[in-house]
């Protein structure tokens, strides 16, 4: 019964931690590394609140073991803003009132960022399918979808100007 020493990269910075083999990446982020921006919702992969990017692909952190982070490149909500400058998605969510209680928001932001990187101008349907694994029990999704569209528009303006 031994803990595991894991070396990884989180939000661009080298990180290492000790975890029990049974601990999920979500538990490690929140309880060991105190990166509490990533939220625990259902803890079984349905709700998307714990969405993080791992080696360029979004995954539910509750369904990844902490030990699997060895050598991986992980992006959490804490790595989305650049210093005090919010990401366009974060601005758009604030301006579009796309959050109420906020528990689902980090997952939506991380998942949306991943979408816009592969598809900078998604249709409403593409947004809704991409975010189908993220549940919100407050806003009813319309404001979230519109905010992702608004951020996509802003980001495209920035790249063309």
């Amino acid at each position, binding site marked *: 019964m031994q803990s595991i020493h894991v070396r990884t990269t989180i939000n661009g910075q080298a990180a290492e931690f000790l975890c029990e*083999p049974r601990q999920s990446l979500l538990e490690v982020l929140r309880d060991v590394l105190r990166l509490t921006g990533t939220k625990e919702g259902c803890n079984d992969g349905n709700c998307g609140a714990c969405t993080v990017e791992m080696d360029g692909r*979004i*995954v539910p952190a509750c*369904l990844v*073991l902490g030990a699997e982070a060895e050598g991986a490149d992980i992006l959490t909500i804490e790595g989305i803003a650049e210093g005090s400058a919010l990401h366009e998605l974060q601005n758009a969510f604030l301006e579009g009132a796309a959050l109420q209680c906020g528990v689902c928001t980090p997952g939506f932001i991380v*998942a949306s960022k991943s*979408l816009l990187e592969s598809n900078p101008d998604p249709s409403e349907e593409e947004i809704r399918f991409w975010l*189908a694994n993220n549940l919100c029990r407050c806003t009813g999704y319309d404001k979230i979808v519109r905010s992702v569209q608004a951020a996509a528009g802003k980001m495209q303006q920035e790249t063309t100007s």
Partner: protein
Amino acid sequence: MHWIDYYRPSTLEACLEAFAKHGASARALAGGTDLLVQMRAGRLANNVVVDVKAVPELNEIRYEPGIGLTLGAAVPCYRIYGDPTVQREYPALIDSVSMIGGTQIQGRASVGGNLCNASPSADAVPPLIALGATCRVASVAGEREIPVEDFCTAPGTNALGEREVLVSLNLPAPSPDSGACYLRFIPRNEMDIAVAGAGVSVRLANGCFDSGRVALAAVAATPLLVPEAGAALGGQPGGRAAIAAAAAAAKAAARPISDMRGTAEYRGNLCEVLTRRALEKAVERAGGTLG
């Protein structure tokens, strides 16, 4: 979750040795979308987890023209639907892996894991059966091949021995005049479990069905191959009459239960409709016409 030990072997040999040593107390971890959930719920008694994602043989997608596709058991859905060769040669596989879970789940979940989990409603399994896929199973004692339709033995159980590992799925190369499709019915647009599903493949020759295979999801204790439906196609003119006969055979072979997702009667009707529509799509993909 109870205490576990975690291993991440980097060779198939080391992986098989881990299963030889730990037997039934070990479980393979690919995407974890079923395994970790079931362990947390206390439904599994294993105390060893063998992460198979560093084993090359379980993580390859390799296509050899004229031979077929070797799909590592741990390859996640997104790598499969992102692969141009699989998109071109196996659209029925793309149908299924792009409807399993949502984006995040597709970032983890594997076809091999979907098969090993042996759920009757597993979306990846009917298209594998329809495409004539076989399982490469290995242990320290040697290897064997199992047709996918014989792999699931009951809900949640499969043909693997205690020391065996599913290494890969081998799909024969599709002939140019063949087509396949997987369709499922759920009452919403995404993120749900099949009420029923139909995976089909057809091969056309001179305006006729040369052969066909039909497999169903969620209407029996295991994913179900329906030989009668394939027989209703073989040698028949390639039109709607043979498709209707195959669809009726699928409905007749279904042995569904009634539960919160649908009644047995409803599921039977779905089998007929889904099989018909999937066959129509498969004919279209094969370059044929329905007349």
